[in-house]
């Protein structure tokens, strides 16, 4: 029997505003603990939240990029739970009147567009960070001491909830990668999973194709795109196994442990918390002016999904995806030269680099000369010499010696000086070719084209 996975994602994105969501403490990553706190984010008695306008505007912008409707009236709610990372005993979040609803996020795939419905995107505040000492695996159970760092407490956080329109781990990964790139290009978040500025939970169930939806489980704490895919696959496999052995899946929450590939129970439905949501009485509803929404709509850049399709026509789907989700496609379009060669260099050698530090013209010159200069010079130039106009020239002057007339006398000289090795080679010890290439490179101070040297040597050494 075949099973169809049904997956919905909940994505949290930390906004990189200058200050926190409801107070004017500066946002800072990696500063000493509890150095960015005030009576408001520490929930001293009587303090009141004051919304961050920038965060509201950025959430609207993200909502527009996700094709959402922007509410004329959005309400903050209090969501209650007990934990030391939550200073007020409640998180200010949004509940039944969020800022952004009812969107569609189009993910291009090799077999057409995959439209993922967006239930909502809402604005809330992040919790502080806890550290448990001497507990098992850093958890509070068994810990002898727990420390709280409130620097992160109150960071603006957007929660994006997708429809259960995703049907494989691969689709989930594609959705997330494109979503991440969209967020990054809007300039509203670093969206780095390793830093926790992008986080993802997955709601997963399986069903007979076209059949009724079944019980879903929630998968939490996956901190890289790869782990998300692996975690989803593991949970799908677990559920299928349960059904196929005659069992029933129960509504539970799991943690995925990337190191072991294990799923462990986080909590059961019976332990599910009652958050006691009610409208935050300390805040008035958000009523974004239509003019503001239109202004923000006008500021939207061309979205990555569209650019991916455009690039696919020139290259192929895979290359287009890597370039766009790697944030390199705009650079790609500016670099002159053979399209495939440019794409390959960007994908294979410049992934992860900041495109702003690369001069497209210089990179083009370098790629054009790639076959004529030594490999080391090319790599060196990529690392150091493409920052500003003219920077690559020094490397380009370093043109490799591929000219036979230049190489021939050098090779003759080396063969004459190493008669024993020549004899050994001719006697069948062909691994000595490396030795001869090395000698030539040494003699030419690395400027010889290895390919040309190789060919010429084999010719001269032929018995």
């Amino acid at each position, binding site marked *: 029997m075949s099973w169809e996975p049904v997956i919905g994602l909940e994505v949290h994105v930390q906004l990189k505003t200058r200050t926190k969501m409801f107070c004017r403490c500066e946002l800072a990553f990696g500063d000493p603990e509890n150095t960015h706190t005030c*009576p408001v984010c*520490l*929930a*001293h*008695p*009587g*303090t*009141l*939240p*004051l*919304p961050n306008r920038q965060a509201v505007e950025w959430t609207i912008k993200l909502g527009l990029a996700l094709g959402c409707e922007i509410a004329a009236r959005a309400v903050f709610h*209090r969501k*209650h739970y*007990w*934990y*030391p990372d939550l*200073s*007020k*005993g*409640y998180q200010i979040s949004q509940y039944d009147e969020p800022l952004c609803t009812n969107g569609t996020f189009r993910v291009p795939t090799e077999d057409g567009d995959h439209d993922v419905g967006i239930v909502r995107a809402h604005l809330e505040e992040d919790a502080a960070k806890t550290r448990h000492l001497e507990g098992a695996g850093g958890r*509070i159970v068994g810990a002898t001491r*727990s420390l*709280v760092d409130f620097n992160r407490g109150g960071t603006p956080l957007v929660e994006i909830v997708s429809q259960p329109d995703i049907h494989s781990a691969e689709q989930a990964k594609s959705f997330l990668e494109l979503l991440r790139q969209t967020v990054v290009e809007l300039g509203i978040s670093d969206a780095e999973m390793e830093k926790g500025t992008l986080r993802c939970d997955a709601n997963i169930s399986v069903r007979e194709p076209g059949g009724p939806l079944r019980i879903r489980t929630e998968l939490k704490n996956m901190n890289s795109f790869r782990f998300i895919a692996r975690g989803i696959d593991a949970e799908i496999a677990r559920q299928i196994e349960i059904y196929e052995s005659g069992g029933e899946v129960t509504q539970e929450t799991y943690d995925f442990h990337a190191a072991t590939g294990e799923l462990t129970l986080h909590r059961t439905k019976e332990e599910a918390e*009652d*958050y*006691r*949501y*009610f409208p935050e*009485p*300390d*805040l*008035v509803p958000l009523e974004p002016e239509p003019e503001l929404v239109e202004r923000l709509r006008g500021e939207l850049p061309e979205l990555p999904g569209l650019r991916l399709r455009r690039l696919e026509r020139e290259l192929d789907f895979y290359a287009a995806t890597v370039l766009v989700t790697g944030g390199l496609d705009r650079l790609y379009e500016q670099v002159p030269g053979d399209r495939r060669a440019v794409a390959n260099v960007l994908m294979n050698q410049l992934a992860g680099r900041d495109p702003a530090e690369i001069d497209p013209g210089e990179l083009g010159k370098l790629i054009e000369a790639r076959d004529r200069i030594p490999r080391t010079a090319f790599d060196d130039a990529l690392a150091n010499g493409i920052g500003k106009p003219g920077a690559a020239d020094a490397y380009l002057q370093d043109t490799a010696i591929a000219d036979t007339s230049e190489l021939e006398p050098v090779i003759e000289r080396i063969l004459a000086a190493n008669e024993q090795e020549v004899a050994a080679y001719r006697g069948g010890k062909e691994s000595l070719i490396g030795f001869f290439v090395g000698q030539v490179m040494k003699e030419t101070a690395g400027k010889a084209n290895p390919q040309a040297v190789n060919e010429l040597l084999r010719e001269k050494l032929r018995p």
Partner: protein
Amino acid sequence: MIDTLRLTAEAAAGLIERREVSAAELHTAYLAREDDVHAYLCTTEYAEGEGVPIALKDLITTKGVATTAGSKILEGYIPVFDSTVARRCKDAGLPLLGKTNMDEFAMGSSTENSAYGPSRNPWDPTRVPGGSSGGSSAAVAAGLAPWALGSDTGGSIKQPAALCGVVGLRPTYGTVSRFGIVAFASSLDQVGPITKTVRDCARLYEIIAGRDPADSTTVDLLEPVEIPNATDLKGLRIGVPRELNEAEGIEPGVADSVAATIDLCRDLGAEVGECSLPRSVDYGLACYYLIAPAEASSNLARYDGVRYGHRAAGAKELDELYERTRSEGFGDEPKRRIMLGTYALSSGYYDAYYAQAQKVRTLIAQEHAALFEHFDLLVSATSPTVAFPLGARTANPIAMYLSDVLTIPSNMAGLPGLSIPCGLSEGLPVGFQLVGPQFSENLLFRAAHALEQTLEFDFVPGRLK
């Protein structure tokens, strides 16, 4: 010799202005009186300011001065910041006399719920001063402060002002900043003045009112505050809501005094007519006791022993830390309301309780708004009874809750209300409540001042004369 029992804030300001007395000397004079009614939880030495000194209810956050909200859970908590109203008082040069006693987290109508022991009524120390701003009202009535600030959620300014024979204003919701006011029920809490005269009340309101960028629920005043001079009520249409004036439990002495004052309104030129607030009075109290505890259960969640205030010693687990800290730190009334409120907000009950109460609250506001198409002001008694003996209602929460039956309806509608003393019943003060539309404080001051001038109520308690 300064007669702090008689001296109004306005007169005190005059003394300072004419350099007959310094602010520091005035401060000393008030604190030299023996606090035999336990009005203060702490007093403060003169520090700065050339104005008339003031007492602040202990839920008003004061930088460097203990702020406990009458609770053990905040014992030893010294704020690192000033509330906006404390800051405005400082900016106006009002030296701080001290922090006044109150029911724990403003939950109560007698100050008997204070974790630090009850205050007493200056007119009769065997009786309560009302609450929750009982300490502020007792301080003003007993000559321990020329004026004070209290806070009002269900009647916590108006009711103790009535029971202590002083003037108390609950301002329009949103005109006075709540930043730094230890929260009880955020959508109802409002800080206001407690004074000897209506003119003092207007002067103090002028100091504290107005939009505060730190409180998004505040607004700019529609017009500047006017210090009243009126001596008549000509042209005013005054409504007498039947349900408020014929409510069960209104003592005959209170009813007589209020009826006489309504007659006086007519004499002073007002047009007086009967009217009706059926739903506001029938459902007001019930809705209040859903909304206020619901918000309180949320607002009090922050007292967890982690960051400040009381922390239970020796807890081994997180839940144990929470449970013991809160069990030890909160008194019975906060615990009762946390339970009520948690229940009302729980999944499956929210719609039937909290959401329904909010709808009724809208109806209450509409019912009041409809009356204000025909009337400028509504009047009634402030409290159904005069000050009751200590202990009389502590065993019966419902009886205690009924103390606020006349003040809650207009509070639920977000309306301003002013209580002035209008006479004595059994030798104890009776309060007269005037309620106006939103932002009608100036009108309330004018009308109350005219009545005050004619009533000539002597605010000095008989036993202290």
